[in-house]
Structure formats: structure tokens, C-alpha cells
């Protein structure tokens, strides 16, 4: 039995709490949050031991592993503390606001041989893994472009209330939505070498970005675009779609379905059907012991716990891969401040230029 502690009782914390509590190999032995009313309700109705200071939880309970679901700015401090105490760590995304610190912590965790995972749950969605499988066997031939879009309804009014409205605390669409898009892109095609065309726009928020767009440049000429917007209530919850183009065709994938278009001439032996084909989540989903909001939330925690039980290193969404995502976020932030190429509205067509130069010549 793995003794687990949980820090942070926000939306993700509560979700993790329910899922871990129901896991046959885990025992949740302590919970920490600074909101006393939440802790007292939890204690009253479940008897779970609660703490308002995370160090007290780490000091007093014989933990094997910790789940960190605090606002993002506290991640690095708590992760470091937990690693020093030789705990296996599951941390919510984004990993660290300071990418350098993330890399360092990833290194520390690996050196100590501790299981380390970040909550990029899209890596546990069956449909995205099917896309990864197809890419791994080169079903699309040589990839030349990838696009990831993430849209959803989070900030729909000009109002700043929670930490998500503060950039310094890891708020904003970049840290909340775009990081998922970047991470799944990294997962599917690897980490980009460079970023250009980064745009961070405010729609309703005063202090943080509500939409993010950027171009990614990969080794070998592959390019990618990221589009994320959390002020879009045309969808009822976050919806993410990945489109990949290669010399043999195209894949469109989201949580529910994998659509492939494979060229008839591509001489493929991998995909059954050439032309368009659609397969659904029911073909890819795997059973979980407890279902809350989607198989992936259970699957990621199960994977974390199984890695601990079996003593095998985490290799799906480790600190190291999340730190790479942090590095791309950091590059986007920097690129957004880079000088822009101005549009010259006084440009003239070659023929007019010719005419003008001959007039100018005649006048000279």
C-alpha cells in the first residue's frame, strides 16, 4: 500500500483526491490546503487528517508519495522539499514557472531515483496515443506540419478574481491552456528547436493573456502552430484538436476520435483504409478502476502509482518532459516581446515602380 498525501484542494486537487482515494494500491493519509473551511468539511465528513501547512503534513505523516495541486507558483518549492524527503511526486501542470528550475528538479528527481510525473493528462487519452502509435510507425511518411488548437470557456467577462488572473502566479491562457497544446505537440513530434510569431493577446483579462498563438520550428524542417483561447464559450469545456500533415496524408485527432486521410498512392501497410477513415474513443479507451471526468485522469494516477509499485521509471509525462514544455513556454514569452516586422503600406508594384523611376529619371 502506498501512503499518499495531497496538497491543494482546488478543482484538480479534489479530483485527484477522489480518484486516489478509490485506488486499491493507495492510501490517502493526509491532505493540506490553506482554506480552513475546505479542510474542516473534509475532515468532518471523511475523517481524513488535514493540515494548513504543507511542511506539517510532510513532517507528521509517513508518506511514500505526494500529489501537488497548488497554484503553479508554489510547485517548485514544494517539489524540492518533497524530493529532499525522498518522496515520489506527482505535480500538476504547468510544472515550474521558471524553466531552469524545472530542469534542475527533473535532474534531482532522476538522480534520487524517485518517480516523478506531471499532470499532462492528454498524454493518457487513448485517441492521442493512437495518433502517436501511427506516427511512430511513420504512417504519415515525412511530417511537415502539425497544428494544435485548444479552445474553451474559462474567462468570458472582464473580471479578475483568482490566481489564474495573475501572470506572476502562473495564470493566463499560456499556463492554463496553451501548455497542454505545447505538451501534446512535444509528446507527438518532439520538442521544437525554435519559436516564432508568438502572440499573447488579452480579450477580457486585465493582467494575463486570454489567447496564445505561436509557430514552432523543429529539426528537419517540420513546423507547427499552436492556437489556444480560453475565452471561447462555443465549446462547453476545453476541447483540444491536433492535426498532422505528412507526405502520406493527414491525421486529425481529439479526445473522441482519430480521423486519418492516407493517400492511395502512399503504399501504406499500416492503416487499413486509404482515403478518410474515422475511429472512435470506444476503440481506444482502456478500463479504469474508477471513473470521474474521463479515463485519462484515472489512468495518469494509476500509471504514477504503478511506477512506484513496480519500481520502474516514469516515461510518459515525467518532470523532464514537463520541463521541456516549460522551456517552450519560456521561449514563447520571450518571442512575444521580440521586435515585429512592420507592414510597409507605401510599397508599390514593380510596374508602378518602373513608371515612377522613369518619371523620376526624366525629372532628374
Amino acid at each position, binding site marked *: 500500500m502506498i501512503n499518499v498525501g495531497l496538497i491543494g484542494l482546488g478543482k484538480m486537487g479534489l479530483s485527484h483526491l477522489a480518484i486516489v482515494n478509490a485506488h486499491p494500491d493507495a492510501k490517502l493519509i493526509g491532505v493540506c490546503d490553506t482554506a480552513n*473551511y475546505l479542510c474542516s468539511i473534509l475532515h468532518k*465528513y471523511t475523517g481524513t487528517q488535514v493540515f494548513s501547512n504543507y511542511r506539517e503534513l510532510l513532517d507528521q505523516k509517513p508518506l511514500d508519495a505526494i500529489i501537488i495541486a497548488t497554484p503553479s507558483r508554489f510547485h517548485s518549492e514544494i517539489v524540492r522539499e518533497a524530493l529532499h524527503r525522498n518522496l515520489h511526486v506527482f505535480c500538476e501542470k504547468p510544472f515550474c514557472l521558471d524553466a531552469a528550475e524545472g530542469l534542475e528538479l527533473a535532474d534531482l528527481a532522476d538522480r534520487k531515483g524517485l518517480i516523478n510525473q506531471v499532470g499532462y493528462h492528454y498524454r493518457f487519452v487513448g485517441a492521442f496515443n493512437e495518433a502517436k502509435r501511427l506516427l511512430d510507425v511513420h504512417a504519415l511518411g515525412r511530417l511537415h506540419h502539425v497544428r494544435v488548437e485548444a479552445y474553451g470557456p474559462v474567462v468570458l467577462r472582464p*473580471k479578475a478574481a483568482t490566481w489564474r488572473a495573475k501572470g506572476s502566479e502562473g495564470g493566463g491562457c499560456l499556463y492554463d491552456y496553451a501548455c497542454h497544446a505545447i505538451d501534446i505537440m512535444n509528446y507527438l513530434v518532439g520538442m521544437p528547436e525554435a519559436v516564432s510569431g508568438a502572440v499573447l493577446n488579452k480579450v477580457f483579462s486585465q493582467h494575463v493573456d486570454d489567447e496564445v498563438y505561436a509557430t514552432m520550428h523543429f529539426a528537419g524542417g517540420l513546423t507547427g502552430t499552436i492556437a489556444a483561447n480560453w475565452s471561447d464559450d462555443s*465549446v462547453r469545456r476545453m476541447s483540444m484538436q491536433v492535426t498532422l500533415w505528412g507526405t502520406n496524408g493527414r491525421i486529425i485527432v481529439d479526445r473522441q476520435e482519430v480521423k486519418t486521410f492516407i493517400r492511395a498512392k502512399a503504399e501504406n501497410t499500416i492503416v487499413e483504409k486509404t482515403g478518410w477513415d474515422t475511429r*472512435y*474513443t*470506444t476503440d481506444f*479507451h482502456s478500463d479504469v478502476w474508477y*471513473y470521474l471526468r474521463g479515463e485519462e485522469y484515472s489512468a495518469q494516477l494509476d500509471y504514477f502509482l504503478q511506477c512506484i509499485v513496480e519500481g520502474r521509471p516514469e516515461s510518459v509525462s515525467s518532470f523532464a518532459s514537463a520541463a521541456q514544455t516549460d522551456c517552450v513556454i519560456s521561449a514563447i514569452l520571450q518571442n512575444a516581446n521580440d521586435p515585429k516586422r512592420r507592414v510597409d503600406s507605401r510599397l508599390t508594384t514593380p510596374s508602378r515602380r518602373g513608371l515612377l523611376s522613369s518619371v523620376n529619371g526624366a525629372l532628374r
Partner: protein
Amino acid sequence: MDRILFGDNQFFGINHMSEEKARAQAMRFGDLREIIDLLDAAYDSGIHVFMCTTHDRISEICAHVRLHPERYSELEFYPCMPYAHKYANAVTEHGMIEALKRFLPAEGTFSALLRGGLSIATRDIEGMARLLIDAEMKMFSGLRTPVIFLQNVVTDLLLGIGIKDAFRIFADHVHERYNAEPGFITMNMPRLLDVLEEIGIPNPIICANINKIGFRMCGGVQLYEEEIASRNFRPVAMSVLASGAITPHEAIEYVCRQKKIQSIVFGASSKQHIKEIKQHIDAFDGRAQNLVTPIVPGRRVSSNGIGWHQ
């Protein structure tokens, strides 16, 4: 409970198979007349229960039904609360406390609760829960709601965390205030059943995915079949088509063979589809009732002596 219940996922852009389809449906059913039209088709085919989420737009349907009492003289609503995204989005936007404040009718209620700090009394929590239920039920005022369901996200969150008393609070309030039976939607039926038994909610109404391929049935098809056959509860089967992965004929046959399943809820976005599924259910049910059981010594038959053998 009625045998066939009409669901509402299709009206609100919820399609577990395809986001594209979900969007197309959201566009089409953005027009209330389209919703009413389909509901009418279901009603006229003999489906007299509308099982619906407490989505804001349901209030428009309720208003329409109130305006035409004769047209819908048999219609009953089985509300499913809460519409969780409403709360989840509010928590992300405003934080937990502010979000709760927004959904509670009386301004003072929650601040009084917060002042209590660590010494929050149980009655305050219960009072808050009742107020939230009442807020969700407002739109059904004057309409028949004999069964009121707790949505699966909330059921399964409470179940996982282990706040068992919440089910009791919900059940009691629904009984006392609305003279209705409590129902529970879950993706984790066997586990919920244990807890409801433990806290003394006898013969509960539980709505869960029940389909031939085991789609979102935590514990697996076999365990579900055993629980349905052997335990004392009233199962309502949802997601019987597994989002379209099973043909209607095959899907309905599977559910109808399990005699103890009380009701089947399904959503459909075309009149043809409603008719087809209704016909399948009627046909399999009819066949089950008319089945002449051959007398074979030693063969186990279902409790009423007729029916399908599992």
C-alpha cells in the same frame, strides 16, 4: 418509473463520440423549436419522461410545457443536477468561495458559514446543500418531477472522496421537499451500491452506463451483470449504444435481456432514431413477456418463471 426515458445530451452539444457531431447538434438545437419538435416526437411515440440536466436552457423547455398543460398532460421530468460545468467554470473564474456565493440565493448564508471557520456546523453544510438543490429545482416549478437525480460528476466525486453523508442529505431533501425519489447517476455502480446500502438508502435508483462492450463501466461488464442480477436496486441503463459503437438492435437486446433493469434512457437527434429505438425496446420486452418457457427439469428460471436466462 417508466420503462423508456428520453435523455437530453444531444441538445447541449454533448456527444461522447464526436466533437464535430456535438457542434452540429449544438447549432441545430440552438433553436428551441428544434428541441420541442424532437421532444414532441418522443412524447407522441409514447415516451413520457424527459430526463434532463439542470442546464439553463431547460428552463425554456419547462416554460413551454407549463404553457401547454393539455398537450403534455402525461409528461414528467427527471431532473439531473447539477449541470456541473456551470460550477466548474465558475470555480475557475471566481475561485471556490466566490463561485459558491454566486449560486446560493441568500447572500448571508455563505458568509455566515465562512465566519464559522474551523467550527463549521454540519447543519450549515446541509443547509447549503439544500439551498443549492432548491436553486437547481426552481426551473421545474409547477411540473411533475417524481425522480430527481444527482449527476455523475458530483456523485462520483463525493463517492471517491468518501463524503457518504451527502447522499443521505440529497435523498432526504428530495423526499421531503419535492416528494420525489432520489436517483444517482454514476460511472462506478458497484462501489456506489455498496455505499448507498451502507448508509441505508434501500432499493436505490441508480443510473449507470450499461452496454454490451463495457464502455465506461468501472469494474467490468461481468461484475455489472452480476450486480444487476443479484442486488436490490433499480438500475436505469444509460449509454446503452456506447455512443454508437453498438448497433441499436444488438444494444437494446443486451439491455432488455437483463430483466432487472427497470428503465432505459437514451438520447437521439432524429425522429427516426427515436422510433427505431422505441420499437426495439418494445419488441424485446414483448418477446420477453411472451416467451414460453420450456419445461426442462433442473433448469433455472427467473423468479417469475418466465423470461430470459442469463
